[in-house]
C-alpha cells in the first residue's frame, strides 16, 4: 500500500523538529519530502552568532546531517524554491517548473529579515543577518574591510556586532530606540549592557535615525548618513532591525495570512485557517495574533503538529511564554515575561551598578510575571520556571531575589555557576556526571531539552536536585533557552495527559483499573511503562479505596515484595516499632532471626528503627514470621516512621507525652499509602529532640497543647516545615494530621512529597481546606479512616494484600528432557 505523502516546505529548525517528533510517534506513516531553499541540511540558526564570533564552526551547528535524512527515508530536495501551492490539485510547483503532489503539507518557511526602505539599502556590502550565507559574507568582509555598522541594537544586532568586533572590525551599532534591546530589557539593564559592550570596544549611536547609505567609488557601500546630517564610514552594513514571518508563498496560494504582525494564521492544532490539510509551524505562523521569533515556541508547535499529523488528535498549542538570553561571551543577560511591568504589578529590584549587577522581578497577584536580569543570570531558569508554572510566591517573596539556592537550608544546587564550572566538575552527584559529559552530549547529539539531557547523560535523572544546574548548562551550551518544557508536562512518553488529567478522569468517570484508565485516556502503549503504571495504580487506590483493582504488577518491586531491594538483589527488612519504642522480647526475636537467616548487617536507622540488610528474597516470609512485628513500610510510598523523643514520661523538660502521641499517630495512620513516602515526628517540648521541623508532619508539644508543622523535608534539599496550627488535645492532633494527609493523598501527584505539593497549591489553600473549613476537615479525616479500615498488614495477610507468594519460591529447572520438548 502506498503511504500518504507529506511534503515539508522549509528545511529549518521548526519543520525538521516537527518531522523528528512525528518519526518518534509514527515512524512509518508518511512518505516524507523536504524542500529547502538553502543548500544545507538542517542547522541550528541560533548558533550562527558563535560561528560569527569564531567560537564554533559551521560543522558544529549542523543538527541533522545528510545521513539523518537518508537513514529516516526522507527525501531532501535542497536548492529548490517552491513558488506555488495548488490546493485543489494538492500540488507544489518549484521555481524550476517541476511539480510535486502531496496528501498533507507542512509549511515551515521561517522568517525574512526586515530591510529598511532607505536609499542605498541594496548596495553591495549591505546585508541582513539570517542564514549561513549572511554569516559567511560577514566573515569574508571582516578579512577585507575595517569599518562595520550594525543597524539595530536588538538581540541579533548586538550578537552580530560582537562577532564582527572579535573578527577585528571597528563596529558601530546604530539604534533608533532610547536604549538597547528595548523589547527584552528595561532602561537600566539596557544602559548597563551598553556600558559593558562599550568596554569591549563597540561604539554606539543611540536614538539615531538612518537616512541613507552612500556608495563609494567602487560602488560598494562606504558611509552611513543620519537624519541629523552626520556621516560615519561604513564598508559593511548589517541590517538587524527585525524579522517578518515569511508567508509570501502561502499568501500567493490563497492561504489566510495576517496583515499585522504577519504570518500564516493557524489554529491550536497548527492547521492553517484555510486548509486543514495544510499545517504550518515556526516563525512563519501567526498563532492567536502572535508571531514568535524564538526557538522554544517553535519546538512546542512542532510537537503538537506531529501529534496531529500522526492522527492521534490530542495536544493543543496554546501559546508560549518566552525568555531571552544574549549569546555574547562575558555578558550575562536574561529576560522573560512582562519584565517592564505596568500599573497592576509590583517590582522587586536589586541594583549594583559598580558590581555590574541588576535584577528586576515583576510580581502580580503573588505570582512572578516577569524577570529582567543583568550581570548575574544564574537563577534565570529558576525564575522562568516559576513564571511558566504560575507558582504562588507569597511565601518565598522575601528570599526570591536571592535565588533558588537561598530557598531551603542545605542542598548542593546553585553553589556553582554553570559557566564558571570546569569540565571535570561534577554536576550530578547521584549518577556521577561531569559538566564536560553534559556539554559534549548537548553539542554532539544536538540536545535541546532537559528531558533529552536526562536520557542521554542521566544527569538530574535521579534525585533531581541538580536540575537547575543542568538547565543552566543547557542554556550556556545550546545558546538559547531550550529548556522550556511545556507548562503542563505529560506523565511520560505513553501519553500526552498530565498527572492531573489522569487524576481528574479517574475521579469523574469512576475508572477502577489501570487498563480502564489507559483505555479511557487513549494511552499510546499497550500497558504503559514503569513510570505511568505505578502512578495510575496509586491514583486508583487513593480515589476509589476498596472498589478499585490494585494491580501489584504495576507497583515497584519494593511494594510487590514488601521489602527494600538492595544493589546486590537482596532485600532489607525494617519492622515497625511504634513510636520508636521496643522491648527485650522483640529484640530477642530480631537477634534470633539475624542468626537463623545469616543476615549480614543490622543497622539502627535515622527513624528510630532497626534495619536488617542483606536478606535473601526467599527468606522474607520466614523472617517476617519469626520476628512477628508489623511491617514498617520502609519500602513503600506510605507512612514510614513516627519519630519521637522520650517526652514527659521521663524527660525533666518534657511538657507533653510525645511518645504516646507518636504511637497514637502511627497506629492511626500506618498502612497508609501516599503519593510519596511520609514521615512524622513528635517532640515533647520546643527543644524538639525528635527533629520535627524536617518532617511531612511535625508535632511539637508545648505547655498548652501541640503545635503542628507541615511540609518539611530532610532529604535532597532540606526544607523546614511550616507552622500550620496549634491545637489543644491529642484527638485534635490526630484529626488535623489525618485531614492534611488525606488532602495530600487525594490531590498530590505521584512521587510528589508534601513539600512540593504544598508549594504547588500554596499553604493558604491547605489552611483553607483543613483549618478554616471544619466540616471538610472532618470529612477528610473520615475518608482517611475509611481507607485504612481493614487495610491488611502485607507481611502477614498475603491474600488480602494481594502478595504473590510465588515470587519467594525460585524455580529449579528440571533435568534436561529433550524428548519432552515438541519439535519446532
Amino acid at each position, binding site marked *: 500500500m502506498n503511504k500518504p505523502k507529506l511534503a515539508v516546505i522549509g528545511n529549518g529548525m521548526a519543520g525538521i523538529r516537527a518531522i523528528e517528533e512525528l518519526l518518534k510517534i509514527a515512524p512509518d506513516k508518511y512518505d516524507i519530502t523536504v524542500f529547502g531553499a538553502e543548500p544545507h541540511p538542517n542547522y541550528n540558526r541560533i548558533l550562527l552568532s558563535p560561528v560569527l564570533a569564531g567560537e564554533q564552526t559551521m560543522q558544529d551547528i549542523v543538527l541533522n546531517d545528510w545521513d539523518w535524512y537518508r537513514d529516516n527515508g526522507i527525501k531532501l530536495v535542497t536548492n529548490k524554491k517552491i513558488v506555488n501551492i495548488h490546493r485543489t490539485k494538492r500540488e507544489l510547483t518549484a521555481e524550476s517548473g517541476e511539480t510535486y503532489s502531496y496528501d498533507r503539507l507542512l509549511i515551515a518557511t521561517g522568517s525574512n529579515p526586515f530591510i529598511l526602505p532607505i536609499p542605498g539599502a541594496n548596495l553591495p556590502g549591505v546585508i541582513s543577518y539570517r542564514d549561513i550565507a549572511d554569516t559567511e559574507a560577514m566573515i569574508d568582509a571582516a578579512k577585507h574591510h575595517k569599518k562595520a555598522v550594525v543597524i539595530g541594537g536588538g538581540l541579533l544586532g548586538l550578537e552580530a556586532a560582537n562577532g564582527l568586533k572579535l573578527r577585528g572590525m571597528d563596529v558601530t551599532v546604530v539604534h533608533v530606540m532610547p536604549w538597547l534591546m528595548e523589547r527584552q530589557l528595561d532602561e537600566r539593564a539596557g544602559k548597563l549592557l551598553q556600558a559593558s559592550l562599550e568596554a569591549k570596544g563597540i561604539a554606539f549611536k543611540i536614538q539615531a535615525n538612518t537616512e541613507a547609505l552612500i556608495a563609494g567609488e567602487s560602488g560598494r557601500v562606504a558611509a552611513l548618513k543620519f537624519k541629523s546630517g552626520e556621516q560615519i564610514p561604513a564598508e559593511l552594513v548589517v541590517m538587524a532591525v527585525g524579522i517578518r514571518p515569511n508567508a509570501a508563498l502561502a499568501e500567493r496560494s490563497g492561504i489566510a495570512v495576517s496583515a499585522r504582525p504577519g504570518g500564516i494564521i493557524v489554529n491550536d492544532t497548527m492547521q492553517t485557517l484555510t486548509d486543514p490539510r495544510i499545517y504550518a509551524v515556526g516563525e512563519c505562523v501567526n498563532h492567536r495574533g502572535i508571531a514568535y521569533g524564538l526557538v522554544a515556541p517553535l519546538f512546542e508547535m512542532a510537537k503538537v503538529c506531529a501529534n496531529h499529523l500522526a492522527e492521534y488528535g490530542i495536544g493543543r498549542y496554546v501559546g508560549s511564554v518566552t525568555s531571552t538570553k544574549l549569546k555574547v561571551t562575558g555578558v550575562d543577560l536574561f529576560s522573560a515575561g512582562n519584565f517592564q511591568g505596568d500599573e497592576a504589578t509590583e517590582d522587586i529590584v536589586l541594583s549594583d551598578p559598580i558590581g555590574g549587577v541588576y535584577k528586576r522581578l515583576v510580581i502580580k497577584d503573588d505570582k512572578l510575571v516577569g524577570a529582567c536580569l543583568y550581570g548575574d543570570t544564574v537563577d534565570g531558569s529558576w525564575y522562568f520556571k516559576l513564571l511558566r508554572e504560575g507558582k504562588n510566591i507569597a511565601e518565598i517573596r522575601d528570599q526570591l531575589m536571592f535565588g533558588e539556592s537561598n530557598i531551603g537550608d542545605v542542598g548542593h544546587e546553585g553553589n556553582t555557576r554553570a559557566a564558571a564550572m570546569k569540565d571535570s566538575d561534577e554536576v550530578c552527584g547521584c549518577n556521577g556526571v561531569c559538566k564536560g559529559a553534559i556539554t559534549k552530549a548537548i553539542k554532539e547529539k544536538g540536545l535541546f531539552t532537559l528531558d533529552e539531557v536526562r536520557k542521554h547523560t542521566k544527569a538530574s535523572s535521579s534525585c533531581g536536585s541538580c536540575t537547575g544546574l543542568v538547565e543552566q548548562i543547557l542554556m550556556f551550551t545550546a545558546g538559547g533557552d531550550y529548556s522550556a518544557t511545556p507548562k503542563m508536562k505529560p506523565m511520560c512518553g505513553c501519553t500526552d495527559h498530565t498527572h492531573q488529567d489522569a487524576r481528574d478522569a479517574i475521579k469523574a468517570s469512576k475508572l477502577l483499573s489501570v487498563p480502564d484508565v489507559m483505555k479511557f485516556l487513549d494511552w499510546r502503549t499497550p500497558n504503559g*511503562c514503569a513510570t505511568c503504571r505505578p502512578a495510575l495504580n496509586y491514583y486508583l487506590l487513593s480515589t476509589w479505596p476498596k472498589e478499585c483493582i490494585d494491580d501489584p504488577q504495576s507497583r515497584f518491586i519494593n511494594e510487590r515484595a514488601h521489602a527494600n531491594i538492595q544493589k546486590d538483589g537482596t532485600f532489607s527488612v525494617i519492622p515497625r516499632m511504634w513510636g520508636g519504642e521496643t522491648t527485650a522480647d522483640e529484640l530477642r526475636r530480631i537477634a534470633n532471626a539475624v542468626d537463623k537467616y545469616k543476615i549480614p548487617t543490622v543497622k539502627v536507622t535515622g527513624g528510630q528503627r532497626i534495619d536488617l540488610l542483606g536478606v535473601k528474597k526467599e527468606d522474607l516470609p520466614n523472617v517476617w514470621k519469626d520476628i512477628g512485628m508489623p511491617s514498617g513500610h520502609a519500602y513503600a510510598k506510605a507512612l514510614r516512621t513516627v519519630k519521637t523523643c522520650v517526652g514527659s514520661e521521663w524527660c525533666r523538660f518534657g511538657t507533653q507525652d510525645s511518645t504516646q502521641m507518636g504511637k497514637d499517630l502511627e497506629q492511626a495512620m500506618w498502612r497508609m499509602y501516599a503519593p510519596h513516602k511520609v514521615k512524622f515526628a513528635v517532640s515533647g517540648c520546643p527543644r524538639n529532640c525528635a527533629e520535627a521541623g524536617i518532617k511531612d508532619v511535625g508535632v511539637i508539644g508545648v505547655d498548652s497543647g501541640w503545635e503542628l508543622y507541615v511540609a518539611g523535608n530532610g532529604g535532597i534539599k532540606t526544607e523546614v516545615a511550616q507552622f500550620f496550627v496549634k491545637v489543644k488535645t491529642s484527638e485534635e492532633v490526630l484529626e488535623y494530621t489525618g485531614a492534611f494527609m488525606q488532602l495530600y493523598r487525594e490531590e498530590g501527584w505521584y512521587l510528589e512529597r508534601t513539600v512540593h505539593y504544598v508549594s504547588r497549591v500554596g499553604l493558604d489553600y491547605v489552611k483553607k481546606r483543613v483549618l478554616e473549613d471544619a466540616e471538610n476537615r472532618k470529612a477528610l479525616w473520615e475518608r482517611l479512616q475509611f481507607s485504612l479500615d481493614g487495610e491488611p498488614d502485607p507481611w502477614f495477610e498475603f491474600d488480602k494484600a494481594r502478595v504473590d507468594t510465588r515470587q519467594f519460591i525460585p524455580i529449579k529447572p*528440571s533435568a534436561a528432557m529433550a524428548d519432552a*520438548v515438541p519439535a519446532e
Partner: protein
Amino acid sequence: MKIETHMSWRYVCKLEELPVLGARVVERSEDEGGNVAVFRNDKDVVFALLDKCPHKGGPLSQGIVFGERVACPLHNWTIELKSGDAVAPDVGCTRRFSVKVDNGDVFVEL
C-alpha cells in the same frame, strides 16, 4: 562465568505459574552462569533473559514488565525482552535464552 557447551531444553513451569506482566527466577549456580529470569507479558508471550542488567547487574526479574520490555529495578534501564538489548540511549545487552511454550508448559533452553 563458565561458558556452557551443552545447551538443552528444560521444563521450567506451567504458563499460569508465571505472573502476567511479571517474572519468576529460575535458579542456577554462578558456575552454571547465574539465575535466569522468565517473563510473561499480557499477550502470554514468554521471554527468558539472564537475570542481570547490563548496567550494574540488577535482577531484571524484579522489574516492571510492559509491552515487550522490562525496567530494571535498580536504575530504571529499559531492556528489550526479545533481544536483551538495552533501549537507547543506554547501550548494553544481556544474554537471552530460547523459550518454547507447549500446551501450557514452559521450556527454556539452558
